[in-house]
């Protein structure tokens, strides 16, 4: 791929994106417009995240890409291959070894460190979008800090369902100022957003970049008498036995039998390697023989 620049984008474009990232870091939670480029993958497939990653990647970086928590989902594979080809960087599935992690819909279970960057793929960056379709109006609402409507939505949820009926893309207030969409991560992950790593968000189609710097206050919206509650399936991982991780539900037979497994595949594997065994797991060596 010598016909393309390192990490695909030309240096000028990367500089433009880096400027947007720096602005985003300076104003946590604020959506910075940027001139998103057409990427060789469709909008909606993570073009925003890919552009942010491309602007951050250095030749010595170690890249991890996850989709739905897993390294081996099709789109994660495809994006990882893209950077292997265009940037020739080392890739890994191990969270702790990665210096840059691009993710779709999850935050890794393992705590991230100050030496890491987490890049989110964002479909709709505007937390107010489904309350107010107009961009001109929502930008004004952010500028004037008019978040009454956001709370009306939460109010309506409680009055109808007895609780806040948002389970993913759960909005947060960043550093007491901007209300931000965390991308469609489950609300289970929201409390992890106050972390040591840099968090960058890229929305390609919507041409927005935003950021949460390390150790920034990120508070999930709620009412004093209906506090935010992280939520996950009630159960343990059938493979590693974890009861503190976000679980995927898997249908295992035609009778609708099901089991729960960790959505973060790397975390699950390292637990099993460390000897944790869930109810339906066989020891690691046997499974390897079977597959």
């Amino acid at each position: 791929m010598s016909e393309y620049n390192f990490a695909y984008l030309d240096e000028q474009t990367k500089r433009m994106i880096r400027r947007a990232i720096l602005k985003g870091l300076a104003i946590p939670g604020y959506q910075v417009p940027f001139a998103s480029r057409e990427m060789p993958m469709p909008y909606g497939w993570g073009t925003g995240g890919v552009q942010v990653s491309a602007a951050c990647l250095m030749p010595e970086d170690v890249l991890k890409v996850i989709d739905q928590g897993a390294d081996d989902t099709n789109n994660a594979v495809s994006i990882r291959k893209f950077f292997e080809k265009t940037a020739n960087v080392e890739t890994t599935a191990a969270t702790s070894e990665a210096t840059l992690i691009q993710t779709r819909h999850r935050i890794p279970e393992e705590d991230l460190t100050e030496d890491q960057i987490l890049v989110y793929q964002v479909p709709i960056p505007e937390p107010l979008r489904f309350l107010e379709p107009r961009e001109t109006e929502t930008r004004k609402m952010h500028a004037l800090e008019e978040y009454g409507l956001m709370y009306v939505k939460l109010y309506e949820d409680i009055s109808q369902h007895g609780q806040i009926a948002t389970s993913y893309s759960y909005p947060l207030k960043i550093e007491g100022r901007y209300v931000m969409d965390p991308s469609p991560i489950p609300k289970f992950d929201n409390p992890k957003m106050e972390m040591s790593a840099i968090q960058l968000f890229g929305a390609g189609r919507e041409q927005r970049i935003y950021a949460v710097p390390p150790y920034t206050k990120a508070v999930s919206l709620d009412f004093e008498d209906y506090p935010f509650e992280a939520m996950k399936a009630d159960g343990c991982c059938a493979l590693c036995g974890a009861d503190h991780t976000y679980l995927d539900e898997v249908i295992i037979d035609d009778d609708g039998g099901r089991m729960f497994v960790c959505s973060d595949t790397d975390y699950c594997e390292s637990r099993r390697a460390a000897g944790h065994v869930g109810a339906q797991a066989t020891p690691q060596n046997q499974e390897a023989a079977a597959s």
Partner: protein
Amino acid sequence: MYVAVKGGERAIDAAHEWLSEERRGDRRLPAMSLNQIIEQLSLTVARVMAEGSLYDQELAALAIKQSRGDLIEAIFLMRAYRTTLPRFGYSNPIDTGKMSCIRRISATFKDAPGGQILGPTFDYTHRLLDFKLAAEGDDQLSDDEYDTLKVHHEVHEQSKEIPHITEFLNKDGLIQAEVESDTTPDDLTREPLELPASRALRLQALTRGDEGFVLGLAYSTQRGYARNHAFVGELRIGYCDVEMDIPELGFSIDIGEIQVTECETVNQFKGSKKEPPQFTRGYGLVFGQSERKAISMALVDRAMRWKELGEDFVGAPAQDEEFVLYHCDNIQATGFLEHIKLPHYVDFQSELELIRKIRKEALAHQEAAKSEDNQPLEAAE
């Protein structure tokens, strides 16, 4: 025994292989050449260049071939390629007044200097399938035969400079004059779209916009959703020189020639608190031969000018700059639409948990209410 799904990489490779086989089709038949596509599917090539925002027939033909004729896919290939190209600079504005026209018509004047040139149009054809084309007969010429005919070249060279029709109205002050400006227009592909957008930006978005979407919007204005009473003042198709200033030389040079379709509509206008009664205009300019798109573009352009002309916003989609500009790009639209095919099981799982929780509480509530209702009855029993 459950084993986590693996092998995404192998599945992708196999899918790509299959796709490439399907693209080629039955290999007993000859493969299409790019030249065949350029020459015989020229309007398709034009559309891919227009919406791909890149004037290059060969690349467009390649994109069409590679995409199995899925035009939005082909446009996407063009866009993705275009974005990697370095920018040497910007050309001077093309002068469509100097266009060598292959077609030029006006619906507002029966006769005008330059005359009506029908050109290669479907307009008055009878839409009957021509079964002669289905016969495999070969009308291919040898190079010598071609040279003697030179049909294409002669037409091209015969045409001369033809003035714009709207200029005649302009002389009498009957049509609103466009404000001349030398400010460099914003570049939609280099700057994020921010609203309100300048007219230059709106026109850029429309000319790249999906033909079907722009057509639908234009049609909606004709049916009364912000009706703007458009006539085709002039529609012209032809070739324009592209010139570029070369700082090292100190003058501009021709860097090539492109085919474009230009449409200027003349619209009735009763006047508003800002403007006296006079005709107003809508403008469309598209790469290649694409009059449907150019006319549609002009109608939608005119609809979006309501604020500048002091007209009322009647809430019609075509008037709504934000609605039009955010939704006319088919590459953005198709990407976001199709991305719902990607796995969403994490979000779905959290929805599942939430619904289970709410249902459990609602059912418990119902149960409680029922047993309350039943209390006297049970007591009676």
